[in-house]
């Protein structure tokens, strides 16, 4: 997260070619292409679970907390405040979400309480970093510790007295409703069970994303375009981003930098809190001490993966959620099939490097790696358990390492800002 990553790229070479622009049609084509690769891998390996409705549904559920934490990180870092305290804010969200849902007997009360709980973490971070100018990392780490301690204390105080609860976990939380697009559930299930090439895979995807989706998930997904709209299409968002790029310039134009940073950091906490609330209310239906398991940090990674943009962040969260669902559901078999997908993708990259970029050496290296992965796929039947549980992390790392040269963080991210100290 240092400035070192910035100097690696060669921005001056770029203007020669027209910049690649992601349009909805290219995105759709890309996704269909990816699904095609998955379909090939499924048919070749027989690992039917890699495109099943259950996997896509689980992937969505696993991606949401990470995506929400990432969105939280995005708001904060776009205003120039590094937020490593996402994990702590998420922990607050898990506890407050569970408490709100139980206290008021409605999961939606929990959603609001979770957001408020996380926002309280955001308030601490804002007080420390914006008002008092404390180092962002130190404050963030402190919040992670405080979040853990405070929830432990509160659990003893509140959940221990409840029936079925204890010092470490809450009673079961009332279930939240789900939504389905009516009329297509059963036909899709039938098509999926035929295991036709591509058609069944597409049916699995659609079925997983449209059937029995929690309302909270829909809310979380909608927050991605909403964030994009607010930060990139409104004056308010422009001011927040200007605080992250060049606060002194923003100040000279009359922007109240402290105020905007405050708002962004508190919203950041609220979003991370929502991610925590999703974990306790929807994903687990109970609060459990330590249930975030580092998802706040993964969310931060997803944000960097997405180049500090909402769309990329959502893609990062989805990738992580999907690979996590694969390894959790069918472990070795599914991850083994994934190897074939990786091999095919790498081969495509090699062709691209050779034909479009004319980077022969890079193409050869990529091709050799693709061949090695293919050999691994062909020579084994399954992937050892020790490896499968880190599949999401390795996949994310792989994509990051391929894309890292293009990343650009907000210019003033992490740099303490003091009003009136313009040089």
């Amino acid at each position, binding site marked *: 997260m240092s400035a070192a990553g910035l100097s690696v790229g060669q921005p001056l070479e770029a203007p020669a070619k027209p910049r690649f622009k992601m349009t909805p049609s290219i995105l759709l084509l890309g996704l269909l292409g990816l699904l095609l690769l998955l379909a090939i891998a499924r048919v070749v390996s027989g690992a039917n679970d890699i495109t099943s409705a259950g996997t896509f549904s689980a992937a969505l559920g696993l991606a949401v907390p990470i995506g929400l934490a990432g969105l939280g990180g995005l708001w904060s870092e776009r205003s120039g405040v590094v937020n490593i305290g996402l994990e702590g804010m998420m922990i607050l969200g898990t506890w407050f979400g569970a408490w709100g849902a139980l206290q008021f007997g409605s999961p939606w009360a929990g959603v609001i309480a979770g957001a408020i709980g996380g926002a309280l973490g955001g308030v601490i971070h804002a007080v*420390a970093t914006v008002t008092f100018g404390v180092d962002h990392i130190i404050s963030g780490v402190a919040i992670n510790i405080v979040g853990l301690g405070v929830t432990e204390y509160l659990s003893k*105080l509140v959940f221990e007295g409840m029936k079925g609860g204890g010092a470490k976990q809450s*009673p079961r939380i009332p279930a939240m409703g789900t939504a389905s697009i009516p009329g297509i559930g059963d036909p899709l299930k039938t098509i999926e069970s035929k295991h036709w090439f591509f058609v069944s895979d597409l049916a699995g995807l659609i079925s997983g994303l449209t059937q029995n989706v929690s309302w909270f998930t829909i809310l979380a997904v909608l927050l991605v375009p909403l964030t994009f709209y607010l930060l990139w299409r409104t004056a308010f968002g422009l001011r927040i981003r200007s605080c992250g790029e060049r606060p002194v310039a923003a100040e000279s134009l009359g922007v109240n930098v402290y105020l905007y940073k405050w708002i962004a950091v508190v919203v950041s906490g609220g979003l991370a809190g929502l991610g925590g609330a999703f974990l306790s209310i929807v994903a687990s239906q109970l609060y459990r001490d330590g249930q975030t398991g580092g998802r706040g940090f993964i969310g931060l990674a997803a944000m960097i993966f997405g180049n500090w943009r909402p769309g990329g962040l959502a893609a990062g969260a989805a990738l992580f959620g999907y690979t996590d669902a694969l390894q959790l559901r069918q472990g070795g078999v599914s991850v083994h099939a994934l190897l074939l997908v990786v091999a095919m993708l790498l081969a495509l990259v090699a062709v691209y490097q050779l034909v479009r970029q004319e980077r022969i050496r890079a193409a050869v290296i990529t091709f050799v790696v693709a061949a090695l992965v293919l050999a691994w796929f062909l020579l084994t039947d399954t992937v050892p358990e020790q490896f499968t549980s880190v599949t999401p992390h390795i996949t994310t790392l792989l994509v990051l390492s391929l894309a890292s040269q293009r990343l650009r963080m907000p210019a003033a991210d992490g740099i303490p800002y003091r009003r009136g100290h313009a040089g």
Partner: protein
Amino acid sequence: MRLIAGLAVAAVVLGAAGCGGGSSTDTAASPSGSGTGKPPLRVGLAYDIGGRGDQSFNDSAAAGLDKAKKDFGITDSKELEANQGETDAQKEERLRLLAEGGYTPIIAVGFAYAGPLKKVASEFPDTKFAIVDDQSTLAGNITNLVFAEEQGSFLVGAAAALKSVKNNVGFVGGVQVPLIKKFEVGYIQGVKHQKPDVQVQVKYLTQPPDFSGFGDPAKGKAAAQGMYDSGADIVYQAAGGSGGGVFEAAKAAGAWAIGVDSDQAKTADPAVRDRILTSMVKKVDVAVYDFIKNNVDGTVKSGPIVYDLAKGGVDYATTGGHINDIVPQLEELKKQIISGQIKVASS
């Protein structure tokens, strides 16, 4: 300074926000004055992550202590808890704190204490120690309270095989450590002993040193759902706090789950209890109680004490009556294991 001020503010704010919740209850964890007459036993207990209130094996140890305190009139006991992600040095410090406080016997709950206990026990040769779930740490003043989890798991495995309609069952382990491996190995052997053609799906949620797999119900739910989706109708969980997620998945799929450590058809949330076929009960409370009793009687022995089926240290639960029809078969298997006719492997 600013940071401290900030944190202080935060603590106050959060504390106030949490107070609206409900009643507070204190556990009797504080040391009180010494008793009268003969020198009373002062018992120290160091919990693993989770501590009192984990609705699992820490709670079970606490129950053993509570019973012993009542039966033997022990008034002075001290209980300390481990924290998420702590180091061995912190565990050492906890044991040392108890030993220096003059507590004896001291019971370390959980295999995570193995390394730290080895060090501390040699520093305090006059203090009696016990460790639950570990038999690698041997010394003259250490009693190892271990369980034959594989035997209990064998029985619930046999029960799963008998009850499975689809001939497909699952096992969800929290973290792939040797202790949890014992559950898996015994379970699979039990399944195959009863019906060799039943397929067993196995999943561990995390790999050491990442121990979050014992406290992540969302992952437990996703893993169990995957198993039910691919044809399993019974899933056995040895995943600590993640087990709640397995029960949720069983509830959603209308399938069965098997509980662990305590009789979870009694301890789990009422909404999911009807999905719990049986539980592999591991009586940590009995082991802790026995150890304190031996200390009272002055008959404490060092080295491993294995709580197996014969000793009643492990067993299967029949709460709910879902396996009443196969109890005779399970009892027969139990007899054969006790008599040595069936040998259950542990790794």
